[in-house]
């Protein structure tokens, strides 16, 4: 089993509903976020192109944050989800320095915090909060090891990319383009 997320950049309108849903669901402290919207406009006027992406931890298969953690607080859960165990975290911030996506932050309580793919919901058979609320249904969460899952079929059918694949992290958030 390998959990992953696919995000349809053609359908995302950048409404930030996923951001707010995550903050509410996971009690994210004020002024912080575990997922966020990025808007990129390229080209020269009038030939402009805009891509809107909902970004978060990439739950990399070759996660540099897990590799550099001196205590093992950053670890892989079943299904490849990268998690931080707060009572093992010393707050050295090595994992924050190691993440090319800057997906982590220091929680005001001292430990390092990040997207969990809403593991507590997934365990109950529910979708992560961001996926559940998306009004354009542009987020897909599922098991890419299962060839018949919706996300596997989408990745087979559509063109996609990952973010900075050249960083060697083997990210598991796919952007449909």
């Amino acid at each position: 089993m390998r959990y992953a997320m696919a995000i349809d950049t053609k359908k995302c309108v950048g409404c930030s509903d996923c951001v707010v849903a995550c903050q509410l669901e996971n009690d994210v402290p004020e002024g912080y976020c575990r997922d966020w919207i990025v808007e990129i406009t390229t080209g020269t006027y009038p030939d402009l192109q805009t891509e809107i992406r909902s970004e978060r931890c990439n739950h990399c298969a070759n996660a540099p944050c897990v590799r550099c953690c001196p205590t093992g607080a950053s670890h892989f859960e079943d299904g490849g989800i990268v998690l931080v165990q707060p009572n093992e975290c010393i707050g050295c911030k090595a994992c924050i320095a190691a993440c090319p996506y800057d997906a982590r932050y220091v929680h005001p309580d001292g430990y390092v915090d990040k997207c969990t793919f809403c593991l507590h919901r997934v365990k109950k058979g529910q979708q992560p909060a961001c996926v559940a609320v998306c009004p354009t249904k542009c987020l897909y969460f599922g098991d890419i090891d299962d060839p018949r899952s919706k996300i596997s079929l989408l990745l087979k059918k559509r063109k996609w990319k990952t973010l900075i694949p050249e960083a060697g992290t083997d990210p598991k958030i796919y952007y449909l383009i």
Partner: protein
Amino acid sequence: MIEEIITSGRMNPEIDPLLHIWGWEISLYLYIGGLVAGILFFSALLVLLNKEDKFTFSVKMLPLSAPVLLGIGLLALFLDLSHKLYFWRLYTIIRLNSPMSWGAWTLMAIFPLSVLWCCIWLKDNFTTFKWPYTWLDALFETGKKYRKLIAWMLVGLSLILGMYTGILLSAFNARPFWNTSILGPLFLVSGLSTGAAAIILFSKNRQERRLFSKVDMALIGVELFFIIHLFMGFLAGVRVHIQAAELFLGGPYTAPFWIFVVSLGLILPALLEFLELKQFKIPHVIPAVMVLFGGLLLRIIVVSAGQASRWLY
């Protein structure tokens, strides 16, 4: 011209707009780690070369500062932790993939060893000193008998300590300016050079000072060579590495790095040491203080510049 405008909704404290997770604490610790590595390395090396009675200051006296300095460095590290009460978690596991774990366990080994090393030489340093208990006296006399064995361990551990301060940073692929394998050797040589400078600064023995002036000049030469290679490697690298080098070649770190670290912290003190060896009247304090200051500034600038360099996507 194709332009790209990126707008991000993320504004996490210490992460955006520029990463700023590590400040003076980490720079100071990396500096002290290198300095202590230098001090212990030279002390142990001179014992192995049977020079302990010729260069008494560097072998017996200066290492007294090592546990104190290490204590200050560890305190700085502790201050940097954001989940302080859990620091002991470092010592519940050995993680070979994590340079920080290597560092924690190296410190665990080198700290008590440096205390033992100091105790061995206490009676040589202070002739009137007596251990309050005979068993303590016997213990450290035995230690002195095995000083070559301890010296071998210190040489190895101090090299690991000096090298790891650089590898700690170079292991971060996400920060292109740090992500160069030459940072380990560079920090090691810089640490040895500051160790030699500390000997020059405080030693009363002219012969000892002259020896370490020569050693320091050689180390500075190697350091300059590494710095040139650092930038050659970046400029021959991928786009993010070129951008990292540009921080120092016209970017915000240009003046502090090339003026204060390279010119005033390496080239000028090496020149002054050379002139002093040629019998010019130059107080030995000046080049030594310059090298020590340059070493500290190198750590501060590298720690800061790494956090300013990133992948763009």
